[in-house]
C-alpha cells in the first residue's frame, strides 16, 4: 500500500460570479501518476494554482505527508517539494536556458555551476539542453525540457504538469512519457492535467474528474474506456463531426514559390512553399507552432504582400491585394491570436462583426454604417455558433477564449467564403464546441469552398482534412491524401523529411 503524499479535503474557491472549485477532495499517493481531467473551465487550473501557492483556497485543507499544507506563495510550495511545469507563459524568450532555470529555483547556485548541472541532469534524463541558448529560439519540445529540468533540479516530491503534450510532436511525447515513467520509478508523484484521454489511459495510474468545479468521479484509466471518461467530463454525450465524401472540383487556391523573410526576431522565414487546394477540399497543415504558421497565415490573409502571381485564386493573381480586397473576392482568414489579431479586444461584438464584413452589406452609398444590418449579422453569428455572451454590445475581450473563438470562426464562415484559411481553429475550446467548429468547417467545404486548416492538433487534422502536409522550419512538405498516411509517415513528415519514395502526391 503506497503512502499518501498529498491529501486535499473539501477545497473550495470562488471568484466573483463563479465557483471555480466546490468541495474538491482527493489524494495523491507517492510514486503515482495522477490524472486531473476536465473541460475548459472545470476548475483544474485553479486547483493546481492553490497547490502551487499562486492562490489560496477559501475553505478546505490540504495535507502534505502528515503536515498541514497551505502555501502562501509559490516559493513556499517549492520549498515543500512541489514543482510545476506550466502549459505556457512561464519562460522568458530573451533570457538563456540557465537564466530561465535559475529564476524558477529557490536557491540557485552560481550560473556557471548551474550550467554544468543542467548539462549533467539533462543528459542523464535523455533531454539534452544547451544552457547558453536563448529560450526564444528553442522548439516547443525544447522549451518544455527547460521547464522539466528546472523542476528536476529541485528534487521535487510532486511534479505538476499542465497539458504537457499539447504542443509536442509524437516523438517528443514519447520521450516525455519515458521521462515521466522514470520519475515515477524514482518514487516521485506526478499530477498530470490533460484532456487527451488516450494519453491518460496510457500512463496514468488514477484519475480524478472535475466538472463545473466539482469532483464528479474518479477511475483507474487503464480499466475505463475513453468514451466513459469523456462522458464523465462533459456530463453528456456529443457527436463527433461526420464527414461526407466529397468530390473535388477544379483548383481554387494555388500558392507557388512563396518565400517570406520574417520580421519577427523569434519568427521563422518561409522558403519556397507550393500547394494548391481544390473546390471542396480541406487541406490540413500540421507541425509545431513557430515553424512558419503565423507567417503563412499572414501571407494568405494579405497582411504580408507578395509578388502577385505567388498566390492565385481561380488563376487570378492576388499576391498584391490587401486583406479587404481579398475578402471582397471571397477569401477569408482567421488567425490564431484571437484577441488583438482576429478581434479587437475593446470593441463590441457588433463592431467586430463590422470590421470584416463586405462593405456593400454594411455601408450605404453615403458612407454611413448600416448598424441594423450589422446587428442582424452579429445576432446570426451568436445564435448559430452558440456564442455565450450577455449582450451583443459586450467587448470582445470580455468573452472567454472558447466563446470568442466560436464568434471569430462563425463571423468568417457565415460570410460563405470561397477560400477559408484558419490557424488553430479549436485552440483552448472545449470538446463539444470543438466538435461544432469542426463540423461547420466540414459543411463549408461541402458547399464548394476550399479550406486550409493550420493546426498543431494532429487528431483534429485527421478528423476533418482530405489532404495533409507539414510545415517545419518554414518549409512545407508535399500534400498527401490523409487516408494513405500511416502514423509512421506522419512522424517522418513532422521530422522534416518528405515521403518521396511513395509519391502519392495529390496535387
Amino acid at each position: 500500500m503506497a503512502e499518501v503524499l498529498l491529501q486535499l479535503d473539501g477545497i473550495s474557491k470562488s471568484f466573483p460570479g463563479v465557483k471555480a472549485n466546490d468541495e474538491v477532495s482527493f489524494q495523491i499517493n507517492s510514486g503515482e501518476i495522477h490524472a486531473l481531467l476536465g473541460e475548459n473551465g472545470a476548475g483544474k487550473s485553479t486547483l493546481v494554482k492553490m497547490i502551487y501557492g499562486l492562490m489560496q483556497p477559501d475553505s478546505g485543507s490540504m495535507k502534505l505527508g502528515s503536515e498541514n499544507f497551505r502555501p502562501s506563495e509559490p516559493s513556499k510550495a517549492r520549498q515543500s517539494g512541489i514543482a510545476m511545469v506550466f502549459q505556457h507563459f512561464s519562460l522568458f524568450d530573451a533570457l538563456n536556458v540557465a537564466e530561465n532555470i535559475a529564476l524558477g529555483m529557490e536557491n540557485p547556485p552560481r550560473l556557471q555551476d548551474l550550467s554544468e548541472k543542467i548539462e549533467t541532469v539533462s543528459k542523464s534524463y535523455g533531454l539534452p539542453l544547451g544552457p547558453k541558448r536563448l529560450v526564444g529560439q528553442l522548439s516547443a519540445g525544447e522549451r518544455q525540457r527547460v521547464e522539466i529540468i528546472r523542476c528536476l533540479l529541485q528534487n521535487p516530491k510532486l511534479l505538476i504538469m499542465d497539458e504537457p503534450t499539447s504542443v509536442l510532436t509524437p516523438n517528443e511525447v514519447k520521450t516525455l512519457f519515458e521521462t515521466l515513467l522514470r520519475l515515477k520509478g524514482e518514487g516521485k508523484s506526478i499530477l498530470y492535467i490533460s484532456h487527451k484521454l488516450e494519453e491518460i489511459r496510457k500512463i496514468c495510474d488514477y484519475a480524478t474528474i472535475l466538472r463545473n468545479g466539482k469532483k464528479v468521479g474518479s477511475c483507474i484509466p487503464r480499466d475505463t474506456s475513453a468514451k466513459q471518461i469523456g462522458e464523465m467530463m462533459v456530463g453528456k454525450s456529443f457527436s463527433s463531426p461526420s464527414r461526407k465524401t466529397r468530390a473535388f472540383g477544379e483548383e481554387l487556391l494555388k500558392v507557388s514559390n512563396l518565400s517570406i523573410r520574417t520580421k519577427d526576431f523569434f519568427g521563422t522565414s518561409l522558403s519556397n512553399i507550393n500547394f494548391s487546394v481544390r473546390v471542396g477540399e480541406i487541406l490540413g497543415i500540421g507541425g509545431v507552432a513557430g515553424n512558419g504558421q503565423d507567417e503563412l497565415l499572414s501571407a494568405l490573409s494579405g497582411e504580408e504582400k507578395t509578388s502577385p502571381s505567388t498566390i492565385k485564386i481561380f488563376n487570378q493573381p492576388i499576391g498584391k491585394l490587401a486583406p479587404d480586397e481579398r475578402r471582397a473576392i471571397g477569401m477569408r482568414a482567421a488567425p490564431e491570436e484571437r484577441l488583438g489579431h482576429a478581434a479587437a479586444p475593446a470593441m463590441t461584438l457588433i463592431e467586430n462583426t463590422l470590421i470584416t464584413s463586405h462593405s456593400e452589406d454594411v455601408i450605404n452609398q453615403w458612407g454611413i454604417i448600416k448598424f441594423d444590418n450589422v446587428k442582424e449579422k452579429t445576432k446570426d453569428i451568436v445564435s448559430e455558433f452558440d456564442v455565450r455572451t450577455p449582450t451583443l454590445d459586450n467587448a470582445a475581450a470580455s468573452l472567454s477564449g472558447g466563446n470568442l473563438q466560436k464568434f471569430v470562426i462563425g463571423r468568417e464562415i457565415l460570410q460563405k467564403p470561397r477560400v477559408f484559411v484558419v490557424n488553430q481553429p479549436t485552440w483552448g475550446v472545449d470538446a463539444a464546441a470543438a466538435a461544432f467548429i469542426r463540423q461547420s468547417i466540414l459543411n463549408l467545404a461541402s458547399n464548394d469552398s476550399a479550406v486550409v486548416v493550420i493546426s498543431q492538433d494532429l487528431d483534429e487534422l485527421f478528423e476533418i482534412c482530405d489532404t495533409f502536409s507539414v510545415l517545419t522550419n518554414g518549409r512545407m512538405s508535399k500534400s498527401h491524401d490523409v487516408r494513405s498516411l500511416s502514423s509512421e509517415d506522419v512522424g517522418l513528415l513532422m521530422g522534416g523529411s518528405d515521403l518521396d519514395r511513395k509519391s502519392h502526391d495529390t496535387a
Partner: protein
Amino acid sequence: MVIFGIDLVLLISALMISATPVLLAAIGEAVVEKSGVLNLGVEGMMITGAVIGFIFAVNTQTPIYGFISAAIAGALLSVLFAVLTQYIMSNQVATGLGLTMVGLGLSALIGKPYEGIKSPTLSKIEIPILSDIPILGPMIFSHDAIVYFSVILVATVAFVISKTRIGLVLRAVGENQEAAHALGYKVVRIRFLAIMFGGATAGIGGAYISLARVPQWTEGMTAGAGWIALALVVFASWKPWRVLLGAYLFGGITVLQLNLQAIGVAIPVEILSMSPYLVTIVVLVGISLFGHHTAPGSLARPFHASQ
C-alpha cells in the same frame, strides 16, 4: 593638446560634465524600462530635482545635501507615478506626460524666490596618482564627486543587471510579467522599487544642472534633457554601457559645437545646434542595427495579478 584651436583636455573634461545630467537620468530610466515600465516623466523628475536640490544646497550651503534632497524629491514624485500606474492601473504614457507637466509647473512655482541666486558648487576631487598622469589626469581624474558617482553607478547597474539574481529577476519581470508572476515574483513591488530608483537618479541628474553645470536656478532649465535621456535608453538598446557611450557622445558634441561656434567656423549656427541630437541618434541607430535589441517584452504593458 590643442587641435584646430580647441583644447582636447578641456573638451573631454567639459563633455563629462555636460553629459552627467543626461547620463544619470538615462541610467535610471534604463532600469525602470528593464522592469517593464515606461516612465515618460523623466523631464519632470529632473526639473523637480533641480529646484529642490538648489533650494536645499543654498539654504544649507552644502551641495551634497542638495543632491540628497534632489534624489528624495525625484523618488517621491516617481512614487506618484508608481501608485497611479501600478495600483490604479492608469495609462503609463499619459501618466508619464502628466508627471512631466506637474514637475515643470511645480518647480517654476517653488523656484520663483530663488531666481538670480548663485548656488554653492562642488569641489573637484583630484584622484591621487591618477590625476598626475599628463593629459589623462586633468581630462578624466579631476572632476567633482557626482561625475565619478555617475560612472560608478553605470558600472554598478551593468553588473547588477547582468550578473546578479536581483538583476535577473528585474529582467524577468520586464520580459514576461505573467511568467514572472506565475513563478512567484512580486511584479508590482519590483516595478515600484525600479520606478523609485529611476526617480532618484533623475532627481540627482537635475540637481547636477542647477548645482554644477550652470549653477543657478532658472525656470525650465533642464531644457529637454529628460527627453534626450529617454531617447538614449531606446537607442542604447537598454544596455548600461551604451547609455554611457550615448550620453558622452551627446555631451561631447554639445561642447564641441559650442567651441566651434566660439571660434567662428563657417557652418550655420542652427546646424551646429542641432548636431548633438543628430549625431547621437545616427550613431546609436547604427549600433543598434547589428544583432537583436528588442525592447523588454512587457514594456508599458499594464499588469494586474488577477487569476
